[in-house]
């Protein structure tokens, strides 16, 4: 074997991958040049083993968890109906509106009666933010996404509902960031949670929704969130630190992982999902039904 040909086997030899009966071994015994080459490269190859790699977190980041949650939702939807993602909820609202127009019926329809179950709709969870009287007999649970335009439309209506039913209804809000279509939704949820750590969750909640068009789809939404935080008197540095920290992200991800809702906003009263339009009458109809049961 010539040295030029032997070169083809040196890497295998150094890596310990060369076959035991390879003719290269005979060549190596006879060739000082190749032995020298092998010795030098083996030293480098061995030292490469010591190149330090830091420890990596074994925890999935929120974006990965959100993708898993969304994929579950996607699979669940595709099994339930041949209609594409989001088409069903849109059609449901349109059909409900049309039916109500013709029949003058209430739009409230508990989905559990249609056989659709939703995990963790129960209220009074200490992890949730609530708005209204803590002892109110009725709890309205909302799953929302701060970058979702309908959620922004519903927000003033929900606030109006809480005023009208002061002492009777409280709101609990949970995150469901649909990151595939709303790239800034997770960060916005983190902004609300970060504000919450300074005691101003609901102020930020309202600001995010009322100012949605300014920051939605922007490349760097933080540059919009920080002035918002400052405008309600938050410590900007702490706000940013919390916004980027693992604690608020874990909280958001936990909420998202615990539900299998199909669209946002999603509302529940006493554990039952309701379909309501963004107007006060629609909510009143749903709430009055439940209050009569009390």
């Amino acid at each position, binding site marked *: 074997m010539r040295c030029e040909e032997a070169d083809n086997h040196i890497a295998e030899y150094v890596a310990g991958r060369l076959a035991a009966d390879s003719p290269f071994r005979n060549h190596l015994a006879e060739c000082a040049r190749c*032995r*020298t080459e092998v010795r030098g490269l083996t030293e*480098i*190859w061995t030292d490469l*083993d010591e190149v330090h790699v830091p420890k*990596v977190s074994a925890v*999935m980041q929120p974006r990965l968890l959100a*993708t898993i949650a969304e994929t579950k939702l996607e699979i669940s939807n595709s099994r339930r109906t041949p209609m594409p993602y989001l088409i069903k909820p849109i059609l449901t609202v349109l059909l409900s509106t049309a039916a109500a127009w013709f029949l003058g019926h209430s739009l409230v329809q508990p989905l559990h009666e249609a056989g659709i179950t939703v995990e963790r709709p129960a209220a009074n969870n200490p992890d949730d933010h609530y708005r209204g009287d803590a002892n109110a007999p009725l709890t309205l649970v909302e799953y929302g996404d701060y970058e979702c335009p309908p959620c922004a439309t519903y927000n003033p209506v929900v606030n109006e509902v809480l005023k009208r039913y002061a002492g009777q209804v409280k709101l609990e809000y949970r995150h469901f960031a649909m990151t595939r279509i709303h790239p800034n939704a997770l960060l916005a949820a983190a902004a609300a949670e970060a504000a919450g750590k300074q005691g101003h969750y609901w102020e930020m909640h309202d600001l995010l929704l009322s100012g949605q068009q300014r920051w939605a789809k922007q490349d760097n939404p933080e540059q919009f969130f920080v002035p918002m935080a400052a405008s309600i008197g938050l410590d900007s540095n702490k706000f940013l630190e919390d916004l980027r920290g693992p604690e608020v992200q874990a909280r958001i991800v936990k909420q998202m992982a615990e539900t299998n809702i199909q669209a946002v906003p999603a509302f529940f009263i006493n554990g039952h999902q309701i379909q309501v339009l963004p107007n006060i009458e629609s909510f009143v109809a749903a709430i009055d039904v439940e209050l009569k049961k009390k």
Partner: protein
Amino acid sequence: MELTDKTLMLAVKAGDLDQFGVLFQRHHNAIFAFFYRMTADASTSEDLTQEVFIRMLKYRNTFGEDSDLRGWMYQIARNLRADHFRHRVPQAALLQEIQADHASPSQRLEQKERVAVLHQALLALPEDRRELLILARYEEMKYEQIAALLSIEVGAVKVRVHRALRELREMFFKMSGEETACDVKKPTTI
């Protein structure tokens, strides 16, 4: 009995997403190490690692009965890294400049420092050679798997690994200021 990677990924593809956590636990360290050895940037490597798994989910339907999970996963990782660094200043060039300023020719390096310089030398290699060495040295991939991943012949992998290793040694000596440990033109005995 432990399920194979392929079985788990096919289960994920079929809708059993709980199996995805097992794949993450099995492979996230290796993928992170691949990115870290390529970049020496822990934060970016961690983000890219998570992105690999996001893309595995997104493209799960492209994983077939005949697919090799490691090959498929590393293909995703390679594409991702190429996308990520496409518009950035080549790190190797920067590192070479930094090292040129700080090399201390007369000083014999202690082992720890020596390994640190070796990593810098690895980072200073052209990207294709660096990637090939990392795949061959650390990722426990067979030459056949590397050949399939890089779309080249197995023989070419063997030759290129040898050349890349020689280049690494030369770069290391250049950066560390050490004398060449062995000069192939002046044979010595082992």
